[in-house]
Each structure stands twice: as structure tokens, then as C-alpha cells.
């Protein structure tokens, strides 16, 4: 190689030192982390408040006449206000009327829908031993088809007042809850299905049956403990 060649050869840029690369990425990651933590801390109470308000609204929607809510957990000592216990278990949202009388309870249920898991909240009135309302908390059902479980008047109407009484020994539902074809209700526990949303509507019937069949027998004998609204 001649001297002229060596002077004309393009010089490759010197590689950046590994220390500099690590330092740059580390600094950017540190600043990112600080920003993310600040935003999470700042929005945490607002998001918790939004969830609380959404739950409150859902409870009032599924218990007609309710204007106040208290949460209970079923423990070995009976129904205990949620704020007074660390016990884990199904939360029972009790709704009260303006004069403090128990209007009903709201229970959460979930099950596999057509697209994903559906979470619902349903209201139960111990006075009529019936389901008085249902609201969808979370659903990814197909827009325009499966999501009609939230809006179809016949379907929702057949859930309001749906019989959920227990057998004489109080161990299970007297009439199983199930979704049938539209207009073919025969039993007190039958729900009108939705054409075009068969899977989603049947999923609601299944989860209502499973939840009510499990939780209502456990709550038998504890209704008076919910009446103590001071």
C-alpha cells in the first residue's frame, strides 16, 4: 500500500465507548422512571376515585331505590363491614333507601363470554327473593351483537324480577337460572335470550346461576345483620 492510498482511505468513525452507551441509556431510563412514578403517584387517588364512583353508580343502578351503599364481607363471625375487617372474600354491596331501609344487595359475578371474560354486577332483593337488576362492569363482546347484553330491553327486562328463591332447606336455588330462546320462557328462572348474541346472553344466565346458587345460600340467616344501618 502506497503512502498516497493510506491518506485517501476513508476513516471509519471511532466507536463510542461502552461506558458512554451505558451511561446514556441509564440516564434516560432513570429520568423515564422518575417521570412515570410521578405520574402514577399523582393520578393514583384520582383513578381510585373514578373506580369507586363507577362502582357506586353500578350498585345504585342494579338496586332500585338505593341511595346509600355499605360494603360487607362474609366471615365466620357473620357479615362484617369491609372497613372493619382484613378478611378476604366476596364483597357484598348493600344498598339502602333514603330512610335507611335495606333496598337490596349487589353481588359481582363473572364468566367466559364470546370474546373474553364478562364481569357483571347484579342486584338481589331479599324481600321478593328475586334479582332486581344487572349491569355489565367489563365486557369485550362484539359491538352491535354481543354487547346488546347491556342494552336489549327484552333481555334486561326478563332479568328484573327474576325468581331467585331457595329450596326449603336453603341449600340451592329452587329454580335454576338459564337463558332460553327469545319468547320461550317457561320456568320462573328463565331469561329471554337475544338473537345474534346467543353466546353472550347464555354466559350471563350461567354466571347468574353459578353466583346466586353459591352465594345466596351462604347469606341465608344473615339478612338481619344488614339492617343495622345507622
Amino acid at each position, binding site marked *: 500500500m502506497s503512502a498516497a492510498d493510506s491518506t485517501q482511505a476513508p476513516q471509519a468513525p471511532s*466507536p463510542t465507548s461502552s461506558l458512554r*452507551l451505558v451511561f*446514556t*441509556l441509564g440516564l434516560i431510563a432513570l429520568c*423515564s422512571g422518575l*417521570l412515570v412514578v410521578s*405520574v402514577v403517584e399523582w393520578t393514583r387517588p384520582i383513578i381510585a376515585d373514578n373506580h369507586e364512583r363507577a362502582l357506586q353508580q353500578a350498585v345504585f343502578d342494579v338496586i332500585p331505590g338505593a341511595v346509600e351503599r355499605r360494603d360487607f364481607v362474609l366471615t365466620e363471625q357473620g357479615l362484617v363491614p369491609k372497613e372493619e375487617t382484613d378478611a378476604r372474600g366476596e364483597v357484598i354491596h348493600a344498598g339502602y333507601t333514603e330512610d335507611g331501609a335495606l333496598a337490596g344487595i349487589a353481588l359481582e359475578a363473572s364468566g367466559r363470554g364470546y370474546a373474553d371474560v364478562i364481569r357483571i354486577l347484579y342486584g338481589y332483593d331479599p324481600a321478593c327473593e328475586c334479582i332486581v337488576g344487572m349491569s355489565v362492569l367489563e365486557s369485550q363482546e362484539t*359491538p*352491535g*351483537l354481543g354487547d346488546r347484553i347491556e342494552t336489549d330491553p327484552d333481555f334486561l327486562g326478563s332479568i328484573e324480577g327474576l325468581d331467585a328463591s331457595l329450596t326449603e332447606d336453603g341449600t340451592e336455588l329452587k329454580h335454576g337460572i338459564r337463558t332460553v330462546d327469545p319468547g320461550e320462557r317457561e320456568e320462573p328462572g328463565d331469561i329471554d335470550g337475544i338473537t345474534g348474541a346467543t353466546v353472550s346472553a347464555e354466559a350471563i344466565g350461567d354466571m347468574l346461576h353459578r353466583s346466586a346458587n353459591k352465594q345466596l345460600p351462604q347469606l341465608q340467616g344473615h339478612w338481619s345483620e344488614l339492617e343495622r344501618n345507622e
Partner: protein
Amino acid sequence: MAAKREQEPITMDTFLSGLWRENPVFVMLLGMCPVLAVTNTTENALAMGLATTFVLVCSTGLVSILRDFIPKEVRIASYIVIIATFVTVVDYAIQAISLEIYNALGAFIQLIVANCMILGRAEAFASRQPLGKTLVDALGVGAGFTLALLCLGTVRELLGAGEILGVQVFPDGFEPWVIMLLPPGGFFVLAGWLLLFAWLKERQNQRAAAAKEATADGR
């Protein structure tokens, strides 16, 4: 070349090119995932457009500020960390503003991080341009993306539910075209808009050619 381009002043064209001539959706066909997935209502389209614009403006702005500090070997990794940070910020901000919109947009908010339009603007523009110009460009591209989402969202909501922003437009007798709210509806409406823009462009070219010919004949 890059140095020359950097010296070019900020003009209205810096903003308008992203909005119209180089529209990320209708011209460059970038970020198709949210374009097709969350444009089933006008509200969702607007929320996704604004969220993406926020991430685009903040992340390209920061990339522009740090352009001389970030070594080229780790630039893509750095851009992804910066974009992911602002996506997380917008994710929590939407949860704080409205749970309803957050639930409707679902995982697509987090997926803004994978939107190639943002990484593309960071790499192709922000890493070579000063802050002011980068911000104007990002606002133009963001506005173009939001406009495109709204074009799809309004048509899909109108035909699929007979409403716009939840307000009923068509009379009660209108039978909604449910397919417009489903994924195939996104493809149909996008194809319709692309066809319209292609036709407009073709007509513009024909008129320009005719005008040129007339000028040549007159001479």
C-alpha cells in the same frame, strides 16, 4: 444535505405536509392497527388521535433536544424508552380523565408504543432537526393522524349506529349497518377514503396536465 435541511425555516408547509400531503394514514399508510381497531365510534377515534398526538409531540420534542447527546448505537433503544414513558403517562392520564374511554380503547393505548409512525418521525425528523421545527412537524403529523381517525370514526358510527358522538342523526326507521362497527367495517371505510383521495389526486393531475397543454397550445 441534512445540515442544509436543518437550516430551512419553519413555514406553514412544515405543519401542513404532515396534515395533508404526507398524511400518515391516507398517504403513508402508517399506524394501521389503531386506525382499523378503535375507530368504531367518533369519541374513541378522537381520544386515540389526541393520545397519539400527545405521545408524538412529547417524545419527538425530547428526542430533538437530546439528539446530540444520544450516541447513534443506542438511539433506537433510547427512542423506544422515551416513547414508552410518554405512552405510560397518557395511559394513566386517560384512566384519570375517563374510565369509560379507557375501557373502550383497551390495550390500544399501550400499543401506541409500537406505532411505527412515532418511531419513524423520531428517527427520520426529530433526530436531525431543532426543537421548534420538530414540534411543528409533530403537531402536523398528529393532526393528520387524528383527522384520518375521525374520518373513519364518524362514517363508521354514522352507518353502524345512525349516530355521531352519541347523537342520533338518522331517523328511528334506519336499520344500522352493524358490520361497520365490526373489524371488516374498518377496512371498507378505509378503502372508501383511499379511493376518494386517489380519485381527487387523479383529477388534480388531469387538470394540471390539461392546463399545461392549453398553455402550450396558446403559445
